């Protein structure tokens, strides 16, 4: 049927209905008592019929009913029949009203009718019948009684009674169905079905209303709606449910309604799901004052607010929130007194939401003028809103609030508390905040935690958590009465307990990973002094955990690390001085502290190339210890320099900004006097004929004197992953983890992650970039450009170099690296450990401490040991940094901190001439190269350089020593620079006692204290004291490594910094020793051996560290299997175990 037809039909129906409508009006006039039953009554009538006298109508109706009945019996399914059936029921539903209105005299007829009903039994709904019958009987009795009484009463009384009767029984509320349990109301197969209909989301309610109106409108037309009901649930958007016998009826009903999509399917709701549709219940969150909520929409969308008060119905909620007042209204019109325009502007599209800001009377006055703000007892009224204590107090509809999953953050809550600290109205206090996050508190409890019960019967009890089961925590109580008693406590009633002095770590929140000592505890707020910043930090006890560890966890966020120099924008660079969970605190060159997210950092800057000079014109290098000559006179180590003008210094004693500060380079002076400045013009290499040839054009070339940005630069690599897999190229540049690689094929430059690159050796071997290139040896080895060849060819003699006059021709491995290797500048290398993945000292600055004193050794007391008769002292001097500057074996891999050990060594050596001072790198480089290239040991290379007959010269013959390479005693100092001796000697790093192979022997190690004199460590009083280690624990990061040492002489126990602890040398036969390192790789490391022959230290060459003294050893198990090792590679042990 077309819509048009339908419409016409609909019209006709309406026309027809007009008549009864009018008639109804008339009737309404007659019976004003109750229009509802009246309406029903009129609607009950067949529209074709005249509104006759009531009795007649009754009768007719009865006839109708009979007819209907008959039809029903015949099971004629016509629309009319159903309609009539409906009408009949309608009538029965309202018939109770008819009793009242019916005249008493018709009682008999009624009775008959009643009988008829009963006799024929056509009423299917028995419930209804019973109901009907009893009701009617009651009515009958009633009326009879009234009849009897009537005679005795005056007409007035009767009238009153009637009036009363009518009033009372207008619509008697019976609640008759309320007794039936809900489960008995479950739908049965006889009930009509529910059909799900898709509608336009948001229009559900309108459509249900439309269906109702439509049903009423077309009720008496030829085509009434055949649906029984329709409903909608707020929690089921986009659909309504229609109750009908068939989907066709639903379709018809929905036809013509806007926003209904019957085409998207009218789906039957399974009978078992029908009830649940009506039972859906929104999870209720009861709002009480103090609850946190969020605003659902409008200007404050998403903002946290606190409930101040509620109306009884819970419809309106008084909230307190942080206002967002636009302090920069866009135009003058916005200043309208009404503020209407402005309001529009704020909510309009494109308008920027003003930031959250507490109400400030003065500010508002300035912007909006005095007349817009009024003060009303304690509160300000501005644009119809009330502001009190800086907060906006406003009523919101409950429906406009988000009450679930509010999860207020501590930041947000502190915004609320901050202002209220001084105020009288302390609705928000810290306990309220704790309340808000209490749920979370349960999750953070762990067995073993110390807790206290703060509420409930057991309040005050404290103990240790045994187990947690759901919300119940079993604790073992501690204390006087209850000690040891187990009890179960609701998890929300306990909180973690800390006492001053506890060492804690923050597990969550802004201060996550901070550690420190608790200084005060008040309820659930714990204040501790951070280990890192030395500042007091207050956190919730729930976020804390007892922890022994020290430090601030990871110092790395993203690609950036603590103390990195980073580019913030074109003009600004800064140094990261604090890492937070996902952000940094950066001190920029202007001294401003910024909170920076990793993505805001353009790049990391490498200032190792940067050149800056201090106030005296000396070059400033990273890690220099310098002092301000003006201003505050602060001291610190140079972290970075920027544009030759700014220097970022670090001093741990300064608490502000994590010890980092920025100053001008021009106002800095080196703390270490550099004296003996060699004129820059003096090219020392030229003095050494041996060096001139090999280093050739490299001298004075740009590469001289500069450390590489990244030693990977220049490395030949192969791409092992990604689109360029298999390509070979050379690293041209690196930035963080990204390398720029020039491919050999196609002459193409690509940017690629370094992790996808493997170093490629000429023989095709591949190796991870993070590994140090094999054969490179220690950094000092780089002074020898030939080491690469010397090594494989068994560079027993330095003359091998002659075979390969051009170091670069064949050594495609790391030319750039080699280039840099010309740079004898210890500073260049001192950076290396930071780059070295295998470095054991994660923080370059910690290790820094190890190096610096060594420097001081040389600077303050120019070579006290080298020139002294005490050879061992020389060894000690060298050992301070690297213990003996033994050859960093190519295969031992024991050169983890190469820069460190060698630097001091070199300084000790170069002390007389100070040839190693940074501004003169070439000068420093040459002596070694020259000693290297010395054709004969006797030819002391450029004696002037070395300034004196230091013992080193005595050792140079070692180069030519005819002893087999394996046992060639390494030359102290010299050997540390020569890579071509194959002996494997150990470079001990400062933390050698923490070596994992020594763990079991730690307390048996015979050690001595060395190198303290130069540093004035403990006044040098302990120099050369021997003793044993009582305890040592490796501390992470920036902390000085110390060990507890018992001194043999005095029996005194004290802590000594690890860097001053060196092994003793084996002294007698049968002494038990442990191998520190060995010639055949790491195999024997940690092995316990016995000295089989008396070690002879009388050899002239011995520099004191035993590196040249062979010791005969064998294992206890196989005494005959003797071996010779150097004294420096073993550590004697005490026999007895502590």
């Amino acid at each position, binding site marked *: 049927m077309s819509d048009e037809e339908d419409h016409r039909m609909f019209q006709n129906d309406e026309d027809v209905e007009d008549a009864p409508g009018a008639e109804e009006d008339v009737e309404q006039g007659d019976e004003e008592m109750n229009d509802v039953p009246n309406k029903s009554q009129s609607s009950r009538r067949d529209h074709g019929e005249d509104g006759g006298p009531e009795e007649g109508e009754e009768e007719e109706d009865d006839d109708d009913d009979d007819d209907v009945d008959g039809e029903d019996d015949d099971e004629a399914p016509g629309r009319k029949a159903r309609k009539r059936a409906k009408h009949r029921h309608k009538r029965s*539903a309202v018939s109770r009203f008819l009793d009242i209105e019916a005249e008493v005299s018709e009682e008999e007829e009624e009775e008959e009718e009643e009988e008829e009903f009963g006799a024929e039994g056509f009423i299917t709904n028995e419930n*209804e019948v019973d109901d009907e019958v009893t009701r009617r009987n009651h009515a009958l009795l009633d009326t009879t009684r009234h009849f009897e009484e009537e005679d005795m009463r005056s007409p007035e009384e009767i009238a009153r009674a009637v009036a009363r009767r009518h009033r009372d029984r207008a619509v008697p509320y019976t609640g008759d169905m309320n007794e039936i349990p809900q489960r008995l109301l479950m739908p049965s197969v006889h009930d009509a079905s529910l059909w799900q209909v898709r509608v336009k989301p948001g229009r559900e309610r309108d459509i249900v209303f439309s269906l109702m109106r439509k049903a009423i409108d077309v009720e008496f037309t030829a085509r009434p709606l055949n649906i029984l009901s*329709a409903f909608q649930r707020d929690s089921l958007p986009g659909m309504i449910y229609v109750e009908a016998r068939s989907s066709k009826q639903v379709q018809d009903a929905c036809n013509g309604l806007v926003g209904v999509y019957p085409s998207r399917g009218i789906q039957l709701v399974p009978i078992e799901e029908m009830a649940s549709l*009506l039972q859906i219940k929104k999870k209720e969150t009861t709002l009480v004052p103090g609850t946190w909520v969020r605003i659902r929409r409008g200007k404050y969308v998403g903002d946290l607010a606190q409930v101040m008060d509620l109306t009884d119905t819970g*419809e309106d909620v008084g909230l307190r929130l942080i206002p967002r007042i636009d302090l920069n209204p866009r135009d003058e019109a916005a200043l309208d007194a009404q503020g209407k325009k402005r309001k529009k502007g704020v909510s309009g599209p494109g308008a920027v939401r003003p930031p959250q800001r507490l109400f400030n009377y003065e500010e508002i006055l300035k912007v909006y003028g005095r007349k817009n703000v009024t003060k009303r007892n304690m509160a300000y009224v501005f644009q119809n809103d009330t502001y009190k204590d800086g907060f906006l107090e406003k009523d919101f509809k409950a429906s406009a609030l988000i009450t679930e999953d509010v999860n207020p953050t501590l930041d947000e809550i502190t915004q609320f508390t901050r202002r209220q600290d001084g105020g009288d109205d302390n609705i928000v206090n810290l306990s309220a905040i704790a309340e808000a996050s209490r749920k979370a508190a349960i999750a953070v409890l762990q067995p073993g935690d110390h807790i206290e019960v703060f509420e409930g019967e057991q309040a005050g009890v404290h103990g240790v958590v045994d187990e947690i089961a759901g919300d119940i925590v079993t604790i073992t109580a501690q204390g006087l009465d209850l000690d040891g008693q187990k009890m179960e406590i609701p998890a929300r009633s306990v909180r973690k307990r800390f006492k001053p002095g506890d060492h804690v770590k923050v597990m969550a929140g802004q201060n996550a990973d901070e550690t420190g000592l608790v200084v005060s505890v008040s309820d659930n707020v714990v204040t501790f002094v951070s280990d890192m910043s030395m500042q007091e930090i207050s956190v919730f006890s729930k976020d804390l955990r007892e922890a022994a560890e020290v430090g601030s966890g990871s110092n790395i966020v993203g690609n950036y690390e603590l103390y990195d120099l980073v580019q913030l924008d074109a003009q600004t660079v800064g140094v990261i001085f604090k890492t937070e969970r996902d952000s940094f605190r950066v001190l920029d060159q202007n001294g401003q502290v910024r909170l920076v997210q990793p993505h805001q950092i353009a790049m990391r800057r490498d200032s190792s190339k940067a050149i800056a000079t201090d106030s005296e014109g000396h070059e400033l290098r990273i890690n220099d210890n310098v002092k301000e000559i003006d201003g505050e006179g602060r001291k610190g180590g140079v972290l970075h320099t920027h544009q030759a003008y700014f220097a970022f210094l670090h001093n741990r004693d300064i608490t502000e900004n994590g010890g980092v500060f920025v100053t001008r380079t021009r106002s800095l002076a080196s703390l270490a006097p550099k004296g003996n400045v060699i004129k820059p013009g003096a090219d020392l290499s030229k003095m050494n004929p041996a060096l001139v040839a090999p280093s050739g054009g490299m001298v004075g070339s740009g590469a001289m004197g500069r450390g590489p940005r990244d030693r990977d630069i220049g490395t030949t690599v192969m791409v092992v992953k990604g689109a360029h897999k298999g390509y070979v190229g050379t690293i041209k540049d690196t930035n963080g983890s990204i390398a720029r690689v020039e491919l050999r094929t196609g002459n193409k430059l690509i940017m690629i992650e370094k992790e996808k690159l493997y170093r490629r050796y000429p023989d095709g071997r591949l190796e991870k970039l993070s590994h140090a290139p094999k054969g490179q040896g220690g950094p000092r080895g780089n002074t020898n450009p030939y080491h690469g060849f010397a090594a494989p060819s068994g560079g027993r003699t330095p003359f091998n170099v002659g075979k390969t006059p051009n170091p670069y021709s064949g050594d495609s491995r790391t030319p750039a690296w080699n280039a840099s290797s010309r740079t004898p500048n210890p500073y260049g290398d001192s950076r290396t450990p930071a780059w070295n993945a295998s470095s054991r000292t994660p923080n370059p600055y910690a290790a820094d401490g190890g190096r610096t004193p060594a420097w001081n050794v040389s600077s303050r007391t120019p070579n006290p040991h080298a020139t002294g008769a005490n050879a061992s002292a020389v060894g000690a001097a060298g050992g301070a940094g690297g213990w003996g500057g033994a050859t960093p074996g190519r295969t031992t891999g024991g050169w983890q901190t190469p820069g460190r050990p060698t630097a001091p060594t070199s300084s000790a050596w170069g002390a007389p001439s100070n040839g190693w001072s940074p501004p003169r790198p070439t000068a420093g480089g040459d002596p070694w190269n020259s000693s290297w290239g010395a054709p004969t040991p006797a030819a002391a290379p450029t004696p002037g350089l070395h300034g004196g007959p230091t013992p080193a010269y005595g050792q140079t013959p070692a180069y030519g020593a005819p002893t087999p390479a394996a046992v060639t005693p390494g030359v102290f100092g010299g050997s540390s620079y020569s890579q071509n001796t194959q002996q494997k000697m150990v470079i001990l790093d400062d933390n050698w006692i923490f070596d994992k192979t020594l763990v079991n022997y730690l307390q048996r190690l015979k050690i001595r204290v060395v190198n303290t004199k130069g540093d004035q460590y403990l006044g040098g009083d302990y120099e050369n004291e021997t003793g044993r280690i009582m305890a040592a624990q490796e501390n992470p990061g920036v902390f000085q490594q110390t060990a507890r040492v018992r001194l043999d002489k005095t029996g005194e126990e004290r802590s000594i910094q690890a860097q001053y602890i060196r092994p003793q040398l084996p002294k007698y036969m049968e002494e038990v020793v442990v191998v520190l390192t060995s010639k055949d790789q790491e195999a024997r490391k940690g092995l316990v051996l016995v000295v089989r022959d008396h070690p002879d230290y009388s050899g002239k060459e011995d520099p004191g560290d035993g590196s040249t003294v062979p010791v005969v050893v064998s294992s206890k198990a196989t005494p005959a299997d003797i071996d010779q090792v150097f004294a420096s590679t073993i550590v004697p042990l005490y026999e007895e175990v502590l």
Partner: protein
Amino acid sequence: MAAIPPLARSKNLRACLLCSLIQVPNEFKKSGCPNCEEILQMKGSADRIATCTTTQFDGVIAVIDPDQSWVAKWQRTAKYVRGMYAVRVNGRIPEDVELELERRNIKYRPRDQSDQD
């Protein structure tokens, strides 16, 4: 037949706490609740309307044929007039009405679905 509110969107639709019928406040004032006027007596009394009806309801049912509808039966509105009913109504009737129901031995069933047996 109850008065069908003209606007479904209207913010001030109110649902009777006893029978869950939805009307605009004016209708309640004019003629009370067609189902429960006898006991709630809201006619003409704004106060009474405020305490016996609420805007806090969820879900709207168009009860077109109360007698036949299972929905109406489930909602226990089968004996009530045709009209718009709420599925769930927050709140309880005032205490005096509750007492009166008790006196009449009528079980009070709150419309907030708090007791479903």
